[in-house]
């Protein structure tokens, strides 16, 4: 796809992840820079316990906002996660009535709130919340930038599963979720490996990296039945229980 802006965004993301030393913190600070928001927070769902935790928060009200949402167990973040699509509130005061519990606890300073699920199809990691202290909607360009950053973040979260070799940000060129063959191949590889979808994506990426091919090219081979991933990649340590956080 023609995505020139996305390349620049991914560079900003790469820089912040390296500087912050953690992916969630890097995502949050990158969003503040790229999207001119007053704060950002990353909520991750711990896979084993199905429990939320605030993995990163940047901005004066970010932590309070997330703790409020976790306390009442409802609000835009929970809805974005369960629906699998963003929840965009250009005016929190006007729209928070959808979640009475949330309306009662959201910091008054948070006037606009944009919640994006961090996901690739059925693989869900958590939610990215972005807020502004003045109400106002986003134009298409700004929303597009946010979506690109969110896609990059989800792609990196997936590639962090099981720690495949190479730069975790190396695959920002072809993101899962944009080319049907990549998602089909992940489904096929998960069956062939007897592994989760997240692991399958990471393995496809690892194979593409190790064989100096694009992810799309590898995916097409898998879908065509010409390539079958096997369970003996030397770099694969089988450890999938780690939180998907990369150290810089």
């Amino acid at each position, binding site marked *: 796809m023609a995505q020139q802006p996305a390349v620049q965004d991914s560079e900003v993301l790469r820089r912040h992840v390296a500087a912050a030393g953690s992916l969630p913190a890097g995502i949050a600070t990158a969003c503040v820079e790229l999207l001119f928001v007053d704060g950002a927070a990353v909520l991750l769902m711990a896979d084993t316990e199905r429990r939320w935790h605030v993995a990163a928060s940047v901005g004066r009200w970010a932590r309070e906002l997330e703790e409020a949402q976790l306390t009442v167990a409802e609000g835009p973040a929970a809805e974005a996660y369960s629906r699998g699509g963003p929840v965009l509130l250009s005016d929190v005061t006007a729209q928070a009535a959808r979640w009475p519990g949330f309306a009662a606890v959201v910091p008054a300073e948070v006037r606009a709130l944009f919640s994006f699920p961090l996901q690739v199809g*059925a693989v869900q990691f958590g939610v990215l919340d972005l807020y502004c202290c003045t109400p106002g909607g986003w134009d298409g360009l700004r929303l597009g930038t946010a979506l690109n950053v969110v896609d990059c973040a989800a792609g990196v979260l997936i590639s962090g599963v099981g720690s495949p070799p190479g730069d975790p940000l190396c695959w920002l060129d072809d993101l899962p979720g944009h080319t049907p063959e990549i998602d089909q191949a992940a489904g096929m590889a998960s069956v062939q490996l007897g592994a989760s979808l997240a692991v399958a994506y990471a393995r496809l990426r690892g194979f593409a990296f190790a064989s100096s091919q694009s992810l799309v090219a590898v995916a097409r081979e898998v879908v065509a039945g010409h390539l079958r991933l096997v369970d003996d990649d030397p770099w694969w340590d089988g450890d999938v229980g780690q939180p998907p956080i990369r150290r810089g």
Partner: protein
Amino acid sequence: MSRETRLAETFVNLADTLVADFDVVDLLQDLVEECVALLEVSAAGLLLADERGGTRVLASTSEETRLLELFQLQVHQGPCLECIATGTAVLVPDLAAEAGRWPQFAAEAAQRGFASVHAVPMRLRAYVLGALNLFGTRPGALSEADVRSSQALADVATIGILQQRTIARGEVVAEQLQTALNSRVVIEQAKGILAATGGIGMDAAYRQLRGYARNRNLRLTDTARSVASGVLNPTQVLTGPWR
């Protein structure tokens, strides 16, 4: 059954779907298949304009790469892109005669056996959500009635994606579009799982998935999510002729 009766029946069925709790991708799949049955075209697809830039395929009459690649090619040039940019229908009865407008697209389309292409906008007031793409294997114009029917079908698709007739907030459009795009990703993942489990192709995997969901009155995306997240055993979806 006459063509008019069939057309009326199609709209009655689509309208029925819209009042119930329905699955967008499933509805749009029905819709593109109806296009081929009703109109003088041999392939159809729905493309959404993505807020990220470019377009993404939400439904297609075939999973064949010859068709999908043709859709994807229009990220850079083609009638569909022009239709989305202008918000008006782009009708090309004879692609060879107008090859100068989109040389790369015209060449690729011809190579894949298509001679005509029509793109009809999916519009909400001034906002263009995407386009319905119709391909024919022979040159020929759509009749005036077919142009009207295809616009009506594209309008149904628009209503289906937005899932409500009055849009209170402009943001709802973006919310619904992005949710629909993610549904499509979940379905691709489930197709992959079914294809590898059953040793079948992607088209067959999709048919099984839709048949299973339909047979049990489940939403297609929910069923796909169950398969993709390991809650539903793929062999259960594969057994039985769900058609």
